[in-house]
């Protein structure tokens, strides 16, 4: 009996330690807090890189494509989708998004994120690219890169 009671105490102690370690791995409030009050201090910490902006644009297109695909059917009209792309591109100051390969890479990524495959994927790919072979290739590249 005493052997089991000793073992039980050990188990309880190490369970508590285990619980504590899990809590620690979950989150930590570090002491890196600060106050920013000085309105005279610079707001621009560092200019965004071109590649950073490109990646952000691609990801926004991917998210938008994923959301669109989840809320519509492959044979639906695409004008609304294209207008939405215009809005996303306009935020980045891009007007000729339909001539930018980043747009189609992002669309490909979005289709993969939405788990679209088979005939539905081929339909979306063709329609989003307007039947353009080069753009379809770019969508395919984005799709495969997301795997």
């Amino acid at each position, binding site marked *: 009996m005493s052997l089991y009671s000793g073992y039980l105490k*050990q188990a309880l102690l190490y369970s508590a330690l285990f619980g504590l*370690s899990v809590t620690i791995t979950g989150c930590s409030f570090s002491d890196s807090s600060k106050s920013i009050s000085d309105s005279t201090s610079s707001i621009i910490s560092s200019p965004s890189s*071109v590649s950073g902006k490109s990646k952000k644009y691609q990801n926004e297109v991917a998210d938008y494509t994923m959301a669109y695909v*989840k809320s*519509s059917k492959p044979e639906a009209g695409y004008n*609304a989708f294209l207008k939405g792309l215009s809005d996303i591109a306009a935020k*980045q*100051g891009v007007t*000729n998004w339909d001539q930018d390969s980043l747009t189609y890479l992002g669309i490909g990524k979005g289709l993969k994120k939405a788990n679209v495959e088979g005939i539905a994927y081929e339909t979306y790919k063709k329609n989003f690219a307007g039947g353009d072979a080069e753009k379809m290739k770019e969508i395919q590249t984005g799709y495969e890169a997301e795997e």
Partner: protein
Amino acid sequence: MLTLRFSLKPFFIRLFLLAIFSDAALAASFEYLYLEASEGNSSGGHSAIQFGDEIYHYQHHDSGLIRLLRQDKQEFHFLYRFLQNRRIHLSRIEVSEETFNRLREYFKWQFLAQDQQFKQLNDLHKERLLLRRLLYKPGTDTDFSAVLRLNGVGLFYAEHDLDSQKDEHLKNIKAGFQSSPLIGLLRKKIEAQYGQDYLSKRREQITAHIKVLTPSHWPAVSSVLSADNFPPVINSFADSYTDYLTGLAAIKVLVEEQSLQSDAFFVTRESVTPEEKKVLATLRDQLALSLLKSVNSGRPDWGYAVLVNLARYIAVEQSLQSGRWVFIDDFAVDSEWISTDQFVEQAEPIQTQINDAQDDFKQTRKAIITIGGLTESNYSQLEMSANRYFEWLNGKQQKAVRYQGKKRYRLKVLACRIGGCLSCRRTN
């Protein structure tokens, strides 16, 4: 009977040490922001959550709703720290990569879904106004012209320039003074590519499409949002109509060789260096190619793309000819303003903004030489930073200053006035 002794002690000690000392376990962090109270509507303080460069926070919306907003870090700080002069307390919270991703994804999808819902609401409002106008044609409808706008048309036309009731004689005189040889050149390139009568055929096509446009079908959707129930994207009747009208305006600019409006661009005192001239010349040629593609594009807002390409082409060509940087004015019609009094009262923080804007403009100029060329995206960054910097400098000349942060707006909208818009009427 054999008794196996199994000790858990080494296992838990190793796990505990791993938890304490492992950097990989807490590989990411997000920030919690608390903004101190201000006056009036801000007297309760405010809070936000930041993931990288994006900040999410909830705001009370005019209609009584609480809406999730997403802002760029710099825009957020400018709005609250600078314009509202509020102290921000920032706490960094370290979490695992998985926790960080789950949190960020949750906020992102909630924001995107709500944004889509509000867009639908706005689109329904525009739809209702347009249908009411077409059915009843009231004499004046200020709501209509404030809501239904033609993106990019304001670059070439002032508010009443497209009024078909205006005296034709007067219009012709004005047109004579505003003819742009550059637009004429570009029109010839289009005709060489697609045929002499391409633009007139395109105009007939658009007119025919407008006459058979029908109101959109708005499906009933569940108001409960989830990852698999995102609000549908709908191309509304109003959007289609304004896109067609913008296309007609773009054709009109090309056919009449219309010049840019005087307030659509600004000439700076900054000289274009020889290296910059080389990249600008390449960009100019790229813009001409983009224009050829956009005029024949299948996208519904091709007219807007044509207008922007035309405007930027003119600005770039003028920069090359004059040797001074010329940019399109990209401030939105409804930009926020900082008055001359505010400019004087907040001289020190504003000087910081001017210094920031100047640095940004200089660095962006350097970058276009370093990366060896100008794409539309990085020219757009240069255009935006130039707009910001030179607008701040206007304040030093006792003028009110516009501010729009880093958010891009559609360039120069024009209010759509049915009956006055390009003489295109529905017959039924």
